[in-house]
């Protein structure tokens, strides 16, 4: 698919989130669900960046992950926060694409590079340059609930492109039990959120991935995670 940009690409490029609808959606639906139905126990809230640009890196178990991270930042910083989500899934139909972009406010990421005109990480770079807070799940997909997969290299690429941007690891636990992949029924569980120390690009891809993973493992080991088989 090397032809001219598709209809979806155009939609992504020309339209961002609808600020009023997005605000109301997060205020009236997402926050009550995340804070009352679910409930969040947040550790080290002081480590959360106060403003953008910043890159939040979290493990991925559930669709609720992005909503939990957005909730962390509160309503006053909502306009700055953009979750990265897979274009092949979130833009799969025109209605869902409208909802994902205008209401959820996602930054669509092409998991397979479809166009020669743009690098698939370009939308994230542009967002960071605008001073936004980007939420990224470097495991790539939700996978098995509450099981971590290795981080993909795209995160190192982004860090290299933006050496000044703070990268903050966040460990999430509980959401994979509440709404795992392939399930439509939400079962309430408390969500544990552990915010880690921020790090930055250190000049070497392998070193960077190493320190990110070490940082992340330390964070995950803080959590006392009950068995879920």
């Amino acid at each position: 698919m090397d032809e001219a940009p598709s209809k979806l690409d155009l939609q992504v490029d020309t339209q961002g989130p609808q600020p009023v609808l997005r605000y109301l959606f997060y205020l009236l639906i997402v926050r009550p669900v995340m804070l009352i139905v679910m409930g969040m126990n947040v550790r080290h809230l002081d480590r959360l960046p106060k403003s953008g640009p910043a890159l939040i890196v979290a493990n991925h178990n559930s669709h609720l992950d992005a909503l939990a991270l957005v909730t962390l930042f509160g309503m006053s910083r909502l306009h700055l926060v953009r979750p990265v989500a897979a274009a092949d899934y979130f833009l799969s139909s025109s209605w869902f694409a409208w909802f994902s972009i205008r209401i959820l406010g996602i930054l669509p990421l092409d998991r397979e590079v479809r166009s020669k005109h743009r690098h698939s990480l370009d939308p994230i770079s542009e967002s960071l340059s605008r001073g936004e807070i980007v939420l990224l799940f470097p495991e790539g997909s939700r996978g098995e609930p509450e099981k971590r997969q290795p981080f993909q290299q795209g995160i190192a690429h982004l860090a290299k492109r933006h050496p000044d941007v703070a990268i903050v690891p966040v460990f999430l636990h509980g959401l994979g039990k509440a709404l795992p992949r392939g399930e439509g029924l939400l079962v309430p569980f408390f969500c544990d959120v552990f915010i880690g120390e921020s790090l930055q690009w250190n000049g070497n891809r392998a070193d960077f991935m190493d320190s990110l993973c070490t940082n992340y493992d330390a964070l995950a080991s803080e959590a006392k995670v009950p068995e879920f088989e």
Partner: protein
Amino acid sequence: MNDTQSNIWFGHLTLEARGALLCIFAVLLIASAISISLVRLKPAGDWTELRARIRTWWVIAVLVAGALLLSPDAAIWFFAFVSFLALKEYFSLIPTRRADRRVLFWAYLAIPVQYLWVSLQWYGMFIIFVPVYLFLLLPARMILIGQTKGFLRAIGTVQWGLMGTVFFLSHAAFLLVLEVSKSPRVSPAWPHELAAQYPGPGLLLLLLVLTQSNDVAQYLWGKSLGRRKIAPLVSPGKTWAGFLGGLATTIILAALIGPRLTMLDVPRSLVAGAIIAISGLFGDLNISALKRDLGVKDAGATLPGHGGVLDRVDSLIFTAPVFFHFVWYSYG
């Protein structure tokens, strides 16, 4: 006929119940004043935990008082919400099986149903729904899913959690709709005529005040002269001196406020104080043992300075049914 009481604001609360609410806020004001002066007088000490604890007490008192002032039904559904928070905390702490997500969902659905029986004043259903019907229904749901590995542990832990966080806590709510029977075993000693119309809020306030002050009294007595430990492997903080001091304090407090707030006469108030002090201790130790088994310090972080909701309602889970059945036997 009896419209004098129901026509005025908060008519469902007797003068004594309203007075009790004012006293609770007065005690909190004193606690806040003491903690603020501690911060001023001894700035070297770390008072953040104490300050957070008292601030959370304010929030709890405002919510309970607000629900009670609104209507008895509002207070019943407030307890349903507390049950939901406590059960959710419990399910988040314990090991669970992915296959049981639907069973847990049914367990959550049991909360509004159980509190519906309370608001309908349907005692017969209220008293058997969790221990009989859910005991049969949840394993049936689990059997239909069909995973046998870990079956006993799964069904045992789910039922245990429901008994504590839903069934036992709902006894506190049932106090609100309790009516004195026409031929009670003990003749009620009403503080005055109007109090006989609305006995519920007074009974609930008595239970809550005695349970929570017993917690505080056992802690303070234990701090000041406790040495011999009751259950050192479960909770090193619980001492015999603390328990006995708390017991005496709670019995005296019960004798002072029981007859003024409820139909309990002085002897029954003394008994109520004693059973609340004893069952409160074991309720507290019960959740301590659970946390130790699971390897966590606090059950959650919902209530700053206290920990989780389970950490706060631990003694109430034990005192509510024991106090309720004492009152039910005597007057119901």
